[in-house]
């Protein structure tokens, strides 16, 4: 428990330790955000921290600790797939939350989706009346 910071190994260890601590704190921040934020959309903002930045830091810690090169492509694959799939689920959850009114509208600064939803609803109503005739 008395490291001497002379060699490269000790510095790499220190960097990976910092990465692990910060990555864990990202998870803690997400949990605090989940508990304290008022509605679904702001909770989604907090939930993204461990999924992207936290996972990146922890995978980098693995790569630094293993001291090999062949493990890096696997870690990159894991992170790239996380980057590809997290927006999909966030999009679906956010849209479902918007449509089921799980948001505090007074907290929004702008609402671009409302125009689209109203246009779609008007178009659906027009189709309905034309089919009825």
């Amino acid at each position, binding site marked *: 428990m008395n*490291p001497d910071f002379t060699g490269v190994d000790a510095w790499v260890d220190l960097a990976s330790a910092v990465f692990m601590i910060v990555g864990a704190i990202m*998870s803690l921040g997400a949990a605090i955000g989940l508990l304290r934020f008022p509605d679904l959309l702001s909770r989604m903002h907090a939930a993204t921290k461990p999924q992207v930045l936290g996972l990146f830091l922890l995978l980098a810690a693995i790569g630094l600790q*293993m001291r090999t090169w062949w493990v890096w492509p696997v870690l990159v694959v*894991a992170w790239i797939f996380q980057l590809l799939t997290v927006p999909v689920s966030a999009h679906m959850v956010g849209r*479902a939350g918007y449509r089921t009114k*799980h948001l505090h509208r007074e907290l929004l600064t702008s609402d671009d989706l409302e125009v689209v939803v109203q246009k779609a609803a008007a178009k*659906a109503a027009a189709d309905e009346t034309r089919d009825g005739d």
Partner: protein
Amino acid sequence: MMQAVLVATAIIFSLAAAGAILRIARGPSLLDRVLAADVLLAILGGALCVDMAVNRHLNNLMLVVAISIIGFIGSVTVARFVADRREQQPHES
């Protein structure tokens, strides 16, 4: 130093998982619970990563890759289900 890091991250991850589980138990809507379950999955993946990094093995690496590839399917399915149950509009953009 690595053992101290392991203890510190274990405490932090435990607190984070407790917060996520509390939100799952308390969340006012289904979507809040789904979101908290996603966060809990991310916390689990992070704990696996820390275990691999500290103990210098790669036993769980394929599990982490699989979580990152197919972990989103559950929340997508539940979000689709919620949207179909609550909304009666015939057309969706």
